[in-house]
């Protein structure tokens, strides 16, 4: 078990890795409702960090702060050493909703970020095709989102998020709406792409198995107002295979499960 994040020096992180994302004493409220309180968290470059907590604990708020879409009421958020004061264009954000433009086909949807950056048609379509092929949708370029299944739309979203090669990926329960089998396939795809592009990832999820399978560090959040109760390292064996569940992490699983149950019963939601 790693030492609590509060005791870690936010400036230097651990060892050689410079921290990608730092939260210092961050809190945020919506009117009278406190969403997050006293968040101190460091995410190192290249790490895959999962945020797990009960419903309403502010996980999405934390992600929005990391994306620069919102500003904290107290404390600061630093991205790659500099304070994050405007929307973070070096981060890719994948939400539970598709956020695809319904009137465009797959190709033009995926090419959208490059179109906004002003890259010419030929180049951006070429790069779009490349990444579309990578997520396995090569023959669906001309299809509209409404003609695709949920899993396929999710892959299109993923392709669009990765096309401009962000350094950081923010994921808000991206696979929640998919059926169990598609979900596992998407998780594998995600992990492969993250390894290939060497991404730093912050994943919000309800799915403990997903958190354990994908991440190397899990942050447990309390019920509202969200505070960090624990940060756990996830040991992976060298032959770690995402398709096989329960490979020696059963204790970790039940520990997290207990945490969620406690949080839920304490707030009376059960």
């Amino acid at each position, binding site marked *: 078990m790693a030492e609590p994040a509060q005791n870690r020096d936010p400036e230097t992180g651990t060892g050689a890795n410079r921290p990608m994302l730092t939260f210092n004493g961050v809190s945020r409220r919506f009117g009278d409702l406190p969403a997050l309180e006293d968040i101190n968290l460091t995410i190192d470059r290249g790490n895959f960090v999962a945020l797990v907590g009960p419903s309403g604990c502010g996980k999405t708020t934390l992600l929005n702060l990391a*994306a620069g*879409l919102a500003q904290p009421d107290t404390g600061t958020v630093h991205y790659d050493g500099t304070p994050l004061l405007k*929307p*973070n*264009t070096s*981060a*890719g*954000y994948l*939400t539970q*909703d*598709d*956020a695809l*433009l*319904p*009137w465009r086909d797959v190709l033009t949807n995926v090419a*959208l*970020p490059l*179109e*906004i*950056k002003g890259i010419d048609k030929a180049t951006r379509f070429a790069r779009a095709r490349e990444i579309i092929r990578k997520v396995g949708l090569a023959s669906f370029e001309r299809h509209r989102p*409404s003609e695709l299944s949920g899993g396929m739309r999710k892959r299109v979203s993923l392709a*669009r998020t990765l096309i*401009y090669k962000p350094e950081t990926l923010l994921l808000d329960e991206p696979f929640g709406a998919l059926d169990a089998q598609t979900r596992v396939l998407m998780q594998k795809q995600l992990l492969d792409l993250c390894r290939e592009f060497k991404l730093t990832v912050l994943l919000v999820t309800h799915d403990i198995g997903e958190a354990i399978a994908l991440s190397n560090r899990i942050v447990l959040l309390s019920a509202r107002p969200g505070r960090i109760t624990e940060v756990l390292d996830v040991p992976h064996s060298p032959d770690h295979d995402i398709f096989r569940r329960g490979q020696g992490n059963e204790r970790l699983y039940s520990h997290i499960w207990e945490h969620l149950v406690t949080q839920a019963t304490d707030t009376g939601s059960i």
Partner: protein
Amino acid sequence: MSRSGSERVTRLQVLVTQAAIVAALISGWELAPNSMLEELLWSRPSAIFAQTYLWLADGTLIRHAYATLLTVAAGMLIGGLIGIAVGLHAGASRTVARLIIGPIEALFALPKITLVPLFILWMGIGAFQHIVFTALVVFFFFFFAMYNGVRGVPAALNDTLTLAGASTAQRIVILYLPASFGWIVIATRLAMPYAFVAAVSTEVIASTSGLGHLVKGSAAVMNSAGMFSAMLALLCVSLTASVIANLAAAKSRWTL
């Protein structure tokens, strides 16, 4: 009580009944015995037909119909464009919205016809004033359409563009306009009859041309045949315009 009997009514039976009703009304009207005064007040179908024929031949009906149509078309175009522009701003910016929604909703609640005397004071009774008034009436439809269209865009889509670093112009072209297209189509269909009412209203109150003016002018000289003739022309023109607007709306099917 048997229900199935009424369900086996055919289109033919309906049409025949309708034709019978129309025939009865027209023949009753035509054949009613009238004193001279009543003749002036009520007219009869044959007289109306004769007057219509006369006016078609000498171009009166065409001339006035054209004036009304011009007002409607110009009003729709101008009111539509301004409504879209303002609605876009209000939809995109919360502060702009809060500033202008109040006055706009207040203006919307005011019966617009009461503004006509003021408009006449400002702009006289010519085509310009008619068009401005029609544009004002039409404005609201397109304003609300655009406003709702922009505000209805899911936050996730907006965030995606923000994170990609989109400029405001890009956001409008890539997101707001396509997302509002369906609303605009609906607004066009809804606004058309209102545009006609607006145009004709200004003509009836004070004008030198247009079908509304023709109705009023005919009544003023007790030419009831002319009055009905102009009314009929107006009915035809506005029905045609509405049908065209509906067809165009149906053709431009927009699927999400």
